[in-house]
């Protein structure tokens, strides 16, 4: 037996594929990304600028468009912090305590993911419209939920509810309570333990959850569409405004506002990358995200 045949293939890393396989995989990935993600995004910007920068600026600075932008930002500014607080509380409870009905709670948190957003919107109409369960009572108090910003905020909270919690639960479960116990045995109180140990350990997961939650809060269409009533300048968010413009064949206007919405998403992504880069050393030595 010849232990070393003359034309034996050169030794390589057991997990490395031949060159042509590697290139094929890379090409498929890049091609798919270009076709499905990059091209459509770019086309949004091109569509917005089709009639020149003047038309673009006009469409973006038009009064109803500005109102939609303001409302979108307001909704995100209310829904995201609330869901951060809820997400932290839920993740904390699920990861660090044992109690009855825990798996039911986890399932419930996922509910907004499994329910169509239109139904999420309808739930609020059913509950709070003039003919709904709580509608008359709230109406008597002068509070209007459906066809108002309040309803939009509620529907957005419902839809974006799982993002932070879902991101934090596995992270916190994996980390367990060892570090918290260490902090307490070193004399830290509850607040100190939370702010110095628990929170820093989930910073990156939390940030990621916030970004996802924010993107969805600004971009939500279905649920918001049902409760909003599409009152221009009052209850139109950016996605709804884009749809109205598009239905009115104002393509430049629609694409201009759409490009703005896309930019907001790109900014959040850039922000995340910047933070990751800035704290790369901490990242390498600590949490996983």
């Amino acid at each position, binding site marked *: 037996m010849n232990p070393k045949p003359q034309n034996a293939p050169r030794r390589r890393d057991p997990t490395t594929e031949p060159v042509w396989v590697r290139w094929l995989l890379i090409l498929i990935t890049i091609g798919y990304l270009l076709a499905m993600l990059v091209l459509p995004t770019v086309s949004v910007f091109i569509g917005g600028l089709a009639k020149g920068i003047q038309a673009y600026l006009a469409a973006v600075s038009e009064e109803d468009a500005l109102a939609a932008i303001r409302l979108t930002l307001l909704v995100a500014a209310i829904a995201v912090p609330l869901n951060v607080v809820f997400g932290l509380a839920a993740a904390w409870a699920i990861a660090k305590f044992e109690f009855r009905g825990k798996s039911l709670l986890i399932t419930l948190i996922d509910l907004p993911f499994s329910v169509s957003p239109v139904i999420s919107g309808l739930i609020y109409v059913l509950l709070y419209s003039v003919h709904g369960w709580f509608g008359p009572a709230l109406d008597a108090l002068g509070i209007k939920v459906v066809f108002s910003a309040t309803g939009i905020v509620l529907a957005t909270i419902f839809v974006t509810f799982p993002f932070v919690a879902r991101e934090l639960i596995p992270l916190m479960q994996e980390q367990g309570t060892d570090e918290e116990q260490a902090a307490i045995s070193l*004399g830290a109180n509850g607040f100190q333990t939370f702010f110095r140990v628990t929170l820093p350990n989930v910073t990156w997961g939390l940030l990621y959850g916030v970004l996802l939650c924010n993107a969805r809060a600004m971009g939500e269409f279905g649920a918001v569409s049902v409760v909003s009533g599409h009152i221009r300048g009052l209850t139109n968010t950016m996605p709804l405004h884009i749809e109205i413009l598009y239905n009115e064949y104002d393509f430049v206007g629609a694409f201009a506002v759409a490009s703005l919405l896309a930019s907001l998403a790109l900014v959040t992504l850039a922000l995340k990358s910047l933070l990751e880069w800035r704290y790369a050393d901490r990242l390498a030595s*600590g949490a996983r995200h």
Partner: protein
Amino acid sequence: MSITVTGLVKHFDSFAALKGVDLAVRPGEFLALLGPSGSGKTTLLRILAGLEFPDAGQLTIDDVDVSEQGARDRQMGFVFQHYALFKHMTVAQNVAFGLRVKPRKERPSRAEINERVDRLLQLVQLEQLGDRYPTQLSGGQRQRVALARALAIEPRVLLLDEPFGALDAKVRKDLRRWLRGLHDEMGITSIFVSHDQEEALELADRVAVMSEGRIAQIGTPTEIYRNPANAFVCEFLGNTNRLTCRIEKGGAKLGEQFFAAAVPSDAPALPGVAYVRPEDCDIHTEPNAAGLKARVLKIHAAGPAVRVELRRLESDEIIEIHLPPGTDAPDVGSDVALSFRRVRIFPVATA
């Protein structure tokens, strides 16, 4: 610091982790809680630290009842099995944590904290690594950071949960010696949990052997090794041969030798187990020698002792015997007679 524990009981759901533990820890001693997994040793340590609360029983430190006190107020230095270092903090920040979270009026100044951290890092020989993060350290280094962090709060007692469990053999031995030195230097009462009998016997002043939620025996390593109180301690501590026998007239015969058992001499005959350590046996190769008959199966001469494996002829039980190096080993396959210098016999009921 003396610690007294009386009647400690702890259940986890239906599992009884501790079934009534009494323990008195002497000031300045290095005590090992030794036992197999599930024997309750870690639960006991966590109750001492205030990380777990007993269902019944009392815990006093220097005659003050602390049963109801939480971990935060107990001022016990706890070193976790997997260290539980704060991943997002540097080594120095980890060590400083216990000082930084003190209430403002007790908190040392920034300069004092830094000085104390430096001193502690020096003590654990990590003065160069204060700026590193825990993930950048080896297991032994992490262990020492955990120790420095626990010592920073000037604990009344140092509690260590499987302090060497996650380390490789070489580091473990070094760290063991170093920790014993540190204990002697600082004079702090220390309690550590271990499932490794060699480690516990080597390191501790006294060893409490735990079994199924109770303390089976407590004593110095020599006492426990030489005079195991029951069959469990016999089997758990070190290599031992287990030979079935029959207890009659207060003892049992092995070969021609009679050994006393801890039973009344007029008790009815009952089955028993004799425990013999491999180093307490002699082999007689001359033909017709008196003793327990056995056949030599294997000889391992590499190592500090010559290990002879034999089969007892009456019962096919395997016996291992250690002969001093240089002794002439018997031939493999030959029949020999065994005599014993030290045997512990317990009735089977308690074995």
